[in-house]
C-alpha cells in the first residue's frame, strides 16, 4: 500500500519536473555548445538553469499549479529539493562521463 502511494508521488514529481527538465536541458546544451561542448559544462549549466526555470515556470507563470502538488502532500520545499537533487545527479553523471 505504502509502495503504491510512494510510486504515485514519484510519478507526480516526474510530472512536475518534466517541464523544467526539457526547457533547462535545451538551454544547457546551447550553453554547452557555446563553451566547447564539454559534458561538465552542460551539467554545470543545468545545475543553475533548472532552479531558474522552476522559478519562472511555476513561481511566476503557473503559481496555482502548485496546488495540484500540495494536495498530494508535496510541499514547496520538497519540490524545490527535487529540482536541486535532479540537477546535482545530472551534473555528477555528466562529470563522470
Amino acid at each position, binding site marked *: 500500500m505504502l509502495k503504491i502511494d510512494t510510486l504515485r508521488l514519484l510519478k507526480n514529481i516526474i510530472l512536475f519536473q518534466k517541464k523544467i527538465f526539457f526547457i533547462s536541458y535545451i538551454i544547457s546544451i546551447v550553453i554547452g555548445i557555446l563553451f566547447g561542448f564539454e559534458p561538465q559544462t552542460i551539467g554545470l549549466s543545468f545545475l543553475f538553469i533548472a532552479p531558474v526555470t522552476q522559478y519562472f515556470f511555476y513561481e511566476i507563470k503557473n503559481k496555482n499549479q502548485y*496546488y495540484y502538488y500540495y494536495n498530494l502532500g508535496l510541499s514547496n520545499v520538497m519540490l524545490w529539493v527535487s529540482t536541486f537533487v535532479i540537477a546535482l545527479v545530472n551534473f555528477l553523471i555528466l562529470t563522470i562521463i
Partner: protein
Amino acid sequence: MNKLHIDSVTKSYNNKVILSDVFISCRKEEIIGLIGRNGSGKSTLLKIVFGTEKSDSKFVKIGNTFIRNISDGRNLINYLPQDNFLPNNISIRSLINLFLEKENSNVLFNNEHIKPLLNKKNQDLSGGEKRIVEILLIIHSKAEYILLDEPFNGVSPIIRDYIIEYIKSNKSSKGYIITDHDYENVINLADRIVFLQNGFLKEIKDKSELVELGYLTRTAYENVYIK
C-alpha cells in the same frame, strides 16, 4: 471519529487584523458553510488551515495529528483553490490516474461528466469543465476533510446543481468546509453556517441574522427565505 479542530487562528497584515482567534470544528458527514463579505478573510482562513498561508498563530488538528504544514495534512486535508490548478499538457485520464488511487479513479472514469473529457488535455477544457474535474478529484482524494473555495465559480447552473447533489451524496465519509459567494446554495447545502466579519467568526443560528450582520439586504432575505 477523527474530528477537524481549528482553533486560535490569528492573522494580521499591515497592522490590520484579518483573523482574530478563529475557532471552527468540523466532523465527518458534516458540511460547514463559511460565508462573509469580499475581503473578509474566508480564503485566507482556508489556506491557513491547509498550510499554504502563514498565520500569526494556529492550532489545527485532525484526530491526534497536528497539521502544521502541507506534509502533515497529506491524506487528511485537501483544498480546492479559487482558480484552476491542474497541470497542462497531460490528459485528464492520466491526471486522474496520477492523483487518485485505483478504486477512486474508476469512479471518475465512469462518471457521466468526466467520461467525455478523459482524452482531452486540461488546457483544452472550458472553465466549467475544468472546475468539475477539479472538484471530483478533490472529493475522491483520500483526504478526510475537504476545503472548497468557491466551487461554483464559473460553472453553469446545471453543473452547479450536480455538484451540490454530488457533495450531499458523498458526505458520508468526509467533512467539508465550503465558501462561495453563491450564498443561497452554500446555505442550502450546509449543515451549519459560520459568518466571518472583522476577523471574528460567528455561528448563524437563524438566517435572519445575516440581515442584522449586514450580509444580506432585507429585500434579498425576504425574496429568498420568506415566500
